């Protein structure tokens, strides 16, 4: 006689698995930390997503204080509307920070602190890993690593789309 484990792991038995949705939508907030990443995130935002929304904090990276930078306006959606970080983090299940190797990722600290406060998971995604020098990688890693509970260094921009699909964003 077959054991329970042998019987229930057949392809025939797989047909009887419950076919109902087993999860609720999770909200993923994707934030570009620099101009190069912002371009990638803007492209991503044009695709159809159920639970993902897209933002940029590139103003923080490119504009030192005194050169057009304003604290209240540092986070915005892709249409340029100012967003409140804590509000956005509050309504997120996961925050993905997208950075480019060699670029300034100092906004990661602010975002990471807010996520830590609200107990929201963070993923840091660094693009350009294949072509970046060690110094470029280290510079961005230094800023991203302390605030990323998962860090991914990808060679291609197409990875983000696959990752978001995999996470049901």
């Amino acid at each position, binding site marked *: 006689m077959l054991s329970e484990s042998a019987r229930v792991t057949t*392809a025939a038995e797989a047909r009887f698995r419950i076919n109902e949705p087993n999860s609720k939508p999770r909200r993923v907030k994707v934030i570009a930390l620099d101009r190069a990443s912002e371009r990638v995130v803007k492209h991503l935002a044009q695709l159809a997503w159920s639970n993902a929304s897209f933002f940029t904090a590139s103003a923080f990276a490119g504009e030192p204080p005194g050169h057009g930078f304003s604290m209240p306006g540092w986070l915005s959606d892709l249409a340029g509307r100012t967003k409140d970080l804590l509000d956005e983090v509050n309504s997120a299940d996961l925050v993905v920070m997208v950075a480019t190797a060699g670029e300034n990722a100092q906004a990661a600290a602010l975002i990471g602190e807010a996520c830590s406060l609200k107990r929201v*998971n963070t993923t840091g995604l660094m693009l350009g890993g294949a072509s970046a020098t060690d110094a470029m990688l280290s510079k961005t890693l*230094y800023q991203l690593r302390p605030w990323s509970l*998962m860090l*991914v260094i990808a060679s291609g921009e197409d990875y983000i789309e*696959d990752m978001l*699909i*995999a996470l*049901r964003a």
Partner: protein
Amino acid sequence: MLRKEQNDLLTQTGPGTPGGRLFRSYWLPALLSEELPENDSPPVRVKLLSERLLAFRDSDGRLGLIDEFCAHRGVSLWFGRNEEKGLRCPYHGWKYDVTGQCIDVPSEPEESGYCRKIKLKSYPMIERGGVLWAYMGPKEQVPPLPEWEFATVPDRQRFVSKRLQECNWLQAMEGGIDSSHVSFLHRGDINSDPLFKGAKGNQYNLADARPVFEVVESAGGLYIGARRNAENDQYYWRITQYVLPSFTMIAPRGGHSVHGHFWIPIDDENCWTWSFDYHPVRDLTDAETAAMREGKGIHVKCIPGTFRPVANKDNDYLIDRAAQKTGRSYSGVEGFGMQDASIQESMGPIVDRTKENLVSTDNGIIMARHRLLRSIKALMNKGEVPPGVDPVHQRVRSAAVVLPRDQAYKDAAREALMACPGVAPASV
């Protein structure tokens, strides 16, 4: 999650499938050398990538991997007589050499040349590192010979085993790069298994149960780094190697040997789990080898004369609920290998990935799938040689290192992640 068509693409490896074409770009481990121990030893049935084959070593020591069935009436040549430089079907005496060429049809006049018109499908097979490797791809694209470090060290420095795993190759392989399961499924075994215990790194493992992961693309696949806090403002890193299509190498512990796996499809619902241990600079001790034979470390004890684990689905993996309840074993199943296999086989023959709910710590799995899909597409559309074929991609090592907090492990541990003959592995 994956869409159904993506799941099919990755899990189907039979003839004519894109996933099968990917696997047919590589030299694949097919048998242990000891399965064909001497010239004219009995032939062995081999099923790989959904094709039924027969392996034999002829009178001159040449290796053959041919269609299992005689071209005459479809008899299995497993019943054949391996003699005088060929395998003879016992039914009517048709005989084949290692290339599958028929060399004798007794019922036909020799002068007629009838036998020269009969040839079974065959694949090249070579021997290296105690393993017989098969190449099942196009004849004009034979890749360079395999150069995985375990296969290049002297025999006394290596131990290789294989076991049947009764599920699709991908869910088995994904277990090998799913570093976050170690803190649960294998909890408790790190400090008791003779092939792991005693390492300083184990203390870091136990002291910090919430590792942070970094997934980095490499030329041949990816590195999966798990970092834990160490003393003096440093991190303890365990770096796993994944090389396409299905090679993984786990970070070593202390002075123990280095180890890893291949997952090779038998068909779409079964695979071979190959497990290897080796030390780059010393012989394995008798005690280590004995422990590996007993199913310790990443190896599994099999039913004598077979490659089926003693604990298997037919006996509910000999799960010990009392041990599970008291905490002696987190899973209740004994041994790392069967803890993994029991869980992976429970998903069913081919897990339906449209229903899964991945989380951020699954990025190693997501990235591996991403690279596999990208490689299949590039191979099918442009004929691009996939990652992992180049021997440079194969000359890799896993590593366990302690590094300053601001360093990228990919760079700081660059040399530790490459195979270097005569150099000890980076291990803590």
